[in-house]
């Protein structure tokens, strides 16, 4: 690859300093948690040192990188360091001219975030934190005083900080390995594979991560003293589970393609939520 390259600018490389800066910033990952794209701002915030290094005086390049890293993101915060590391490797390759398109990057993120949250949530939220919390609480109740909160604080943060640092390192190194070995048709294979994985996971996330409940009672049948209540939700569930989230997503997609501003769609959905609750459709 290198022998016939016509690149005149020197290769852009991320430094150890960027890794440390990104690691520090990853501690603010969830700060802008919002209902629309969840942790997207925090994820871009975490990648800013890399973006600045790769596009030092290229405003358009920086703008494009920021835009593609501001798409939907939802993951166990600690696991964001792994994806962050992989994204740094991808951005580095892209800045050096490898043909990786924005959709591939988005697909890779979506493809990884669901399964990675599936690994991270039970480990960090389901096991380590409650076990440490219960242990510290029992120490405090048996009269150990200030030692109890200190143990909780120190042990948790030692685990968290080392996990974040090593996950980011592993992500960056493996990401670089994968992307560097891409030659010939391999970039296209990666693009296709990432898109398939991304679309498949997206199909699963839409019904699982969108909460719509419609307790509106359709019918009440009393037979042999037993009352069977059928709600609108039951009807939808029997028809096809997850149908309501799917229709809602397609409605938003249709509006987006009609060039309706996303802010208006959100206003519309808030109005729908309040109105739907008021008339008893949603609950």
């Amino acid at each position: 690859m290198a022998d016939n390259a016509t690149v005149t600018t020197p290769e852009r490389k991320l430094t150890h300093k960027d890794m440390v800066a990104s690691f520090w910033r990853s501690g603010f990952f969830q700060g802008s948690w919002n209902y629309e794209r969840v942790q997207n701002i925090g994820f871009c915030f975490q990648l800013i040192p890399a973006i600045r290094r790769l596009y030092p005086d290229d405003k358009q390049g920086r703008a494009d990188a920021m835009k593609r890293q501001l798409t939907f993101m939802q993951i166990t915060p600690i696991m964001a360091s792994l994806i962050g590391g992989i994204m740094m490797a991808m951005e580095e390759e892209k800045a050096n001219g490898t043909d990786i398109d924005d959709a591939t990057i988005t697909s890779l993120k979506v493809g990884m975030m669901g399964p990675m949250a599936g690994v991270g949530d039970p480990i960090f939220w389901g096991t380590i934190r409650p076990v440490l919390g219960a242990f510290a609480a029992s120490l405090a109740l048996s009269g150990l005083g200030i030692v109890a909160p200190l143990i909780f604080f120190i042990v948790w943060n030692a685990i968290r900080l080392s996990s974040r640092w090593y996950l980011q390192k592993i992500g960056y190194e493996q990401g670089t390995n994968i992307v560097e070995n891409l030659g010939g048709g391999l970039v296209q294979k990666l693009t296709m594979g990432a898109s398939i994985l991304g679309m498949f996971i997206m199909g699963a996330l839409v019904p699982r991560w969108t909460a719509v409940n419609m307790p509106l009672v359709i019918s009440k049948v009393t037979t042999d003293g037993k009352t069977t209540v059928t709600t609108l939700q039951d009807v939808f569930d029997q028809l096809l589970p997850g149908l309501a989230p799917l229709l809602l997503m397609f409605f938003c997609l249709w509006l987006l393609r009609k060039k309706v501003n996303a802010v208006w769609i959100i206003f519309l959905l808030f109005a729908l939520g309040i109105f739907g609750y008021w008339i008893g459709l949603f609950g």
Partner: protein
Amino acid sequence: MSGLAITGLIVVAFLAGVDVILDEWELAQPIVACTLVGLAVGDVQDGILLGAHLQLLALGWMNIGSAIPPDAALASVVSAILVCGPAQMSIHNGIAIAVPLAIAGQVLNIFVRTIIVFMAHLVDKKAENGDWRGLDRIHYFDMCLQGLRIAIPAYLVTIVSPQTVQNTLNAVPKVITNGLAIAGGFIVAVGFAMVVNMMASTDLWPFFFLGFALAAVKSLNLIAFGIIGLCMALIYIQLSPRFAVGDIDAAATPGSSTEDEIDRELEDL
């Protein structure tokens, strides 16, 4: 309470408010937050004991998916002020008031996270100009909002009765709070639509619907989805004639122009 105690308390409340959202240092976990409030007010022992009890209560309050858990920060900080401060509430009563406070904190969190949706669109505007400083500023501003969400009620509790705070929170109509909470559950559909809009091409839709249909199988977790998706991607690439060996030129991505193809051919020569 002395000015120093109140200042310390507001700092602790602010940090707990930010960190309950970040979920990083875990300063807002009751065992830590109540101890810190106890330190600020000058009654560490009661703070630790209250924290231990509340910790056991809050073991299951976690940020998973887009569900918003009861708020550990408001519960810990305000009940610790009432127990350790001049109100000298018993630990037992402190535990009792923690749950309604956690719910109140949850409602405030829903409000703030709704406001941040609009900040996210402001960030998009900054990104268009490559203005990373603007993104940083908005991100810090969002965190400050979340900190004030706890710091302001904590300060109010030191000057008015806890009952007044509770009544004020209850004064917001149920239609608005519940309606917002419900909308909060499905607003994420806009984010999903944005991603699909970017990724979707005709040959990819079947995979989306495969994922959708399989999502109804509740015993399949997301790790299993990852494995299935990865296998499908590998099988597709192995079987697709587009990726057949020796036929690399035909393997252009659907979106690339003919110019790209010519470039690639030239490179191969």
